[in-house]
């Protein structure tokens, strides 16, 4: 057996660096270490050339018109902040209304919260059990004061893919700027800023087998040209959109990661989907009462988010400590509140506490999936034997009929 423990199945949180990416980056730490803004010598020129190549490569992956539309950042958190606050600052005179969804990443939601403090109105469109927003609900939320719509390409917890093209059609008709947090979906599900009428898009290298601490914001330059109020002032880098010396090795690695996805993404998605389906099939064949959270079809190939009824998520994670996964359970968070994404989908709170997110990625093997499936099955059985809720449910007691002393 060549199985190496622990098994990493948390590829939504971050991904390992692809060795090909590392190889591409290395020279830019040592011999080609120049500052891409140095115009007076070869060190700078070489760094600048690498950065410009990277821009073009990243632009190609999302079908942007040109590399000039790529603004490098420190990651998608910054990209989301720049997009939302930058649009609010530049277009705030036109109107003070923003539309987003309840399942966005905190980088989007908290940026919107900040705008609310500054006098903006934000509409948070809900999602149903499917975890997929209805484009009609977005359209209905638009008013003549709306300047921005922000919807993610794919959700980081339940992996549900949002109807970006349908939303883009409506925002374009209304002349509203459309930002997409594309972090989780890029290279895994089709994403085309032209075809989908996307104006701003956040991406992050470390979710696609690139390095941490580097990301980009796509900013459309024509039809319409989108402008931003800069959130980072300084030397005027990135056409004044984001000052700061560029992270050249990081950017080179980011572009290499995009190039690999462009070439191998489709094939890889099929392979990862097969692994995900294998895991799912094994679990539901062996275990009763396993609930899939969110739509199973409109979902990232590597995502499986399930609740094992009557088994608490953190308890299960402890039992499978040789497998790295995550849970929507409150016990894993400092706030003691279960995942806001699962709750906003209308999930029973107990089931939110029982959720486990498996995130399958490029380097996972069939052998690992089989190991994880067997381990999870045996531990869920063991924990159910220890669960008072399972016992009550088996006896036909309706858990909702009990007066629980909530604390």
């Amino acid at each position, binding site marked *: 057996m060549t199985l190496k423990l622990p098994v990493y199945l948390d590829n939504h949180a971050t991904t390992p660096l692809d060795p090909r990416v590392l190889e591409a980056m290395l020279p830019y730490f040592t011999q080609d270490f120049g500052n891409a803004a140095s115009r007076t010598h070869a060190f700078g020129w070489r760094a600048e050339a690498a950065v410009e190549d990277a821009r073009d490569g990243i632009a190609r992956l999302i079908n942007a018109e040109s590399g000039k539309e790529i603004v490098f950042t420190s990651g998608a958190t910054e990209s989301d902040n720049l997009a939302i606050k930058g649009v609010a600052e530049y277009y705030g005179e036109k109107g003070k209304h923003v539309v987003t969804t309840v399942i966005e990443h905190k980088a989007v939601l908290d940026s919107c919260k900040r705008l609310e403090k500054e006098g903006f109105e934000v509409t948070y469109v809900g999602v149903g059990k499917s975890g997929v927003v209805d484009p009609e609900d977005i359209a209905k939320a638009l008013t003549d004061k709306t300047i921005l719509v922000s919807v993610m390409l794919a959700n980081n917890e339940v992996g549900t893919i949002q109807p970006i093209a349908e939303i883009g059609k409506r925002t374009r008709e209304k002349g509203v700027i459309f930002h997409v947090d594309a972090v989780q979906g890029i290279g895994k599900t089709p994403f085309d800023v032209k075809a989908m009428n996307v104006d701003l898009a956040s991406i992050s290298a470390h979710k696609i087998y690139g390095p941490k601490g580097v990301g980009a914001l796509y900013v459309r330059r024509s039809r319409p040209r989108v402008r931003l109020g800069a959130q980072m002032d300084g030397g005027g880098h990135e056409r004044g959109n984001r000052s700061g010396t560029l992270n050249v090795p990081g950017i080179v690695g980011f572009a290499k990661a995009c190039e690999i996805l462009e070439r191998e993404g489709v094939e890889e998605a099929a392979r990862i989907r097969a692994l995900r389906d294998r895991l799912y099939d094994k679990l539901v064949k062996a275990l009763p009462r396993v609930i899939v959270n969110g739509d199973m079809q409109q979902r990232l190939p590597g995502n499986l988010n399930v609740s094992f009824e009557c088994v608490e998520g953190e308890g299960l994670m402890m039992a499978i400590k040789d497998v790295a996964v995550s849970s929507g359970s409150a016990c894993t968070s*400092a706030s003691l509140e279960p995942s806001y994404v699962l709750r906003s989908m209308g999930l029973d709170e107990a089931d939110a506490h029982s959720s486990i997110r498996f995130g399958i990625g490029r380097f996972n093997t069939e052998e690992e999936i089989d190991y994880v499936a067997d381990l999870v099955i045996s531990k869920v059985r063991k924990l159910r034997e220890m669960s008072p809720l399972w016992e009550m449910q088996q006896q036909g007691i309706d858990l909702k009929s009990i007066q629980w002393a909530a*604390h």
Partner: protein
Amino acid sequence: MAYSDKVIEHYENPRNVGAFDASDPEVGTGLVGAPACGDVMRLQIRVDDEGVIQDARFKTFGCGSAIASSSLATEWLKGKSLEEAGGIHNSMIAEELSLPPVKIHCSVLAEDAIKSAIEDYKQKRAARVALSEPPALARAEERPAG
């Protein structure tokens, strides 16, 4: 979150998992917590006529610290009088298991479960006595657990 060795030990080898017949007059049952909060503990004691806990069982829906807290509680309960058992404080459980601050509420739940099991046993006993003895005596027995 890194767990202490003692939490891991109890979690991997939980003591006294199971159930007693809750309708048995010698058994006291405590069911605390709520599914919506992510933790439910059921702790049961079997008490002899001398008021000494002969045996204990638990089942817990919760994190590893909650399972370890209830497992430890059942271990401690055996051989204790009801009064001694009522003196088990959550801080003793938290200390024994080296629980970090965010996990203190798991030990609080265990303490609640112990208290509630004792209370249940006492109520049952009081009801039993009320049936077989003159009413005046029954009232004397029916003291709150404190």
